[in-house]
């Protein structure tokens, strides 16, 4: 064997050994089991894409964990989580609105998650507003981590405001901040109508939410101090009277036609709407529309609005490895919630809201100003039935078929009946 052949043989041997080694290593890596976490949520809009990007980054940073996301429309989502969760087939990690957490907790689907706030790598509790954190606690234990806050606020079409001369000294659109300015703006923008193209300064979107957004301003509430239905209290009546007067007294809003207010706003036929900050994702797709986000004007006695939160929950009964992986992912999402804010949300953590990047998000930061005044829906298991009663009461008043007090009296009786039935039923259960 000459030198050339020897070098060739050596090279070939090295190559073979190298390949074998690489293969052995790759096999070793491949064999290392990943902890698979199934993560369900209802982020079917543009927010889902942002969440997907965050999951990809987490999976890249954490090769031992594989988060896979399943998005289901909210209308079906809770049914699926509930039914699958009850017999232990549900996802390890899932999103629940703070308002829906009571039912999930009573069903025993949600695990206590106190330890995620403990230790050096724990999420600092002090970084959350106590009122927000309270929404996720049952019997002194944390059941979830709030990812965001989504208050109801006001979206204004700045072009329409400018076109009727409602501007600041610097020429920017002037957003109404109180009842007088709000009514003047709503009335003013109606003047943009033509014979074939009606324009409105304001329109209702989701009636129940629109009503609930005004309740804190009028010192209204759903339940009394004893936890009984109190829908017909003077504050609620005052809020509903105002909402009804927009249609039946002042004729400022379009006829009630299937709550198409948001569609009208998108089509620039409506100047102002009350909606959740999450609708921003829908507007971001409209390139020719100029809008501005603002707190809901002070229509009542003081500022206030309705809010809710997407909360991250771990399913009860999962093994420790999965629990640790799910908690790691929750910490990642919480720490990086500035990225989530870009999807049209207000981060739940104060430190994230203090970032310059968040302050530059006009709509989100404007909506976030309402955090000190916001109210969450009541924490009851019959919230859907109560909501339906409220929705009917609002609808009757907007359609002019009942007076606010009369409509709320009926709603209150029906809501209390549902609550009594539920109390009797849960008392009979073994849980």
């Amino acid at each position: 064997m000459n030198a050339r052949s020897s070098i060739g043989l050596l090279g070939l041997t090295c190559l073979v050994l190298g390949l074998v080694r690489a293969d052995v290593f790759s096999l070793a890596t491949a064999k290392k089991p990943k902890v698979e976490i199934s993560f369900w949520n209802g982020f079917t809009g543009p927010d889902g894409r942002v969440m997907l990007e965050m999951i990809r980054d987490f999976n890249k940073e954490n090769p031992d964990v594989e988060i896979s996301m399943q998005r289901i429309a909210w209308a079906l989502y809770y049914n699926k989580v509930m039914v699958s969760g009850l017999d232990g087939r549900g996802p390890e990690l899932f999103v629940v609105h703070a308002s829906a957490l009571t039912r999930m907790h009573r069903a025993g689907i949600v695990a206590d998650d106190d330890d995620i706030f403990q230790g050096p790598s724990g999420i600092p509790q002090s970084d959350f507003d106590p009122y927000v954190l309270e929404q996720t606690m049952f019997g002194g234990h944390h059941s979830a981590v709030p990812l965001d806050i989504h208050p109801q606020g006001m979206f204004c079409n700045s072009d329409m405001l400018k076109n009727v001369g409602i501007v600041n000294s610097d020429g920017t659109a002037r957003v109404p901040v109180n009842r007088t300015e709000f009514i003047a703006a709503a009335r003013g923008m109606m003047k943009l109508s033509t014979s074939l193209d009606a324009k409105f300064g304001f329109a209702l979107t989701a009636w129940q939410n629109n009503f609930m957004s005004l309740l804190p301003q009028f010192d209204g509430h759903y339940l009394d101090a004893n936890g009984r239905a109190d829908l017909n209290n003077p504050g609620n009546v005052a809020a509903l009277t105002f909402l009804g007067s927009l249609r039946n007294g002042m004729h400022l809003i379009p006829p009630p036609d299937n709550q198409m207010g948001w569609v009208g706003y998108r089509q620039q036929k409506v100047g102002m709407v009350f909606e959740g900050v999450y609708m921003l994702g829908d507007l971001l797709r409209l390139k020719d529309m100029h809008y501005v986000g603002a707190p809901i004007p002070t229509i009542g006695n003081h500022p206030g609005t309705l809010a809710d939160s997407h909360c991250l929950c771990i399913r009860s009964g999962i093994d420790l490895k999965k629990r640790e992986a799910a908690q790691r992912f929750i910490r990642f999402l919480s720490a990086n919630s500035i990225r989530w804010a870009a999807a049209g949300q207000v981060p739940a953590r104060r430190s994230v809201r203090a970032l310059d990047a968040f302050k530059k998000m006009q709509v989100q930061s404007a909506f976030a100003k309402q955090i000190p005044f916001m109210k969450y829906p009541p924490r009851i298991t019959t919230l859907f039935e109560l909501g339906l009663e409220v929705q009917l009461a609002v609808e009757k008043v907007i359609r002019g078929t009942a007076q606010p007090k009369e409509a709320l009296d009926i709603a209150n009786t029906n809501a209390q009946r549902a609550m009594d039935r539920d109390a009797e039923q849960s008392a009979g259960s073994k849980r």
Partner: protein
Amino acid sequence: MNYHTRRRLTGFVFLAPYFLSFCCFLLLPILVAAGLAFMRFDLTAKNSIQLVGVQNFRELMKDSYFAQALLATCRYAILMVPSLIISAFAIALGLNSMSRGRDLMRALIYLPGMFTIAVTAILWQWFYNLEFGLFNFLLKHLGSAPVSWLSDKRLAMPSIVVMALWWTAGGASVVLLTALQQIPRMYIEAAALDGANAGQLFWRITLPLLRPVLFFVVVTNTIGAFQMFPQASLLTQGGPLLSTRGVVQYMYETAFNNYRLGYAASISWALTLVIVVFISAQFFAFRRIAD
């Protein structure tokens, strides 16, 4: 194994796949629903299953929302079934008399039935929209005031029926057309030779011979009408003021929004009873006409 046994077994083998799926996905759920109707079962209160006898049915009798939903369902069925039969029959007679282009017309008429109800509802939501819908756009150009098709309590249900007719009339007319084409020409020709006019031919020959198929179309569409759910749920969400919320939608909301499975099961049995009453009435009516 003799021939008859083999033949009988072969029949069972052919039936087995359907029979198994029938037992698993139809019979078993029916039995479970029958049991649930006499129980209190709230998904959120684990281990809350309790036998409550006929309490669910007693509550149902006093439930004003159930009464409202039943009324809405009956209104839909009463508007929908006769309109469907008349329009499908008219279409079938028209197609039957065509000598050219019948296949193309039949395909076009059947086309809406190929859409899913979701697509159909989205399309008609736009047609009916008060501010920027097609119908009101046309009305405005004709100088008329816009109409609240879906938010006026008097118009909402008829508007749903019109959409459902557009969606389903094609299917029913194809069935009736096929039946019309099966009527032997000699009966018509013999009656015509005996001097029967067009009206007599229709009432004395065509209609009686179509009776079995007509009965089938009426019964299946009546059952379908009582099961009305996505039509209203997608177009009006059950509004205005729950005036178009049918029994099935109420049952769905009770089971999957309020998680009251026992009560929802009792609603389903009440609906079954109503359907049985209506179908029995139709059966006796058809038999009486036949006699």
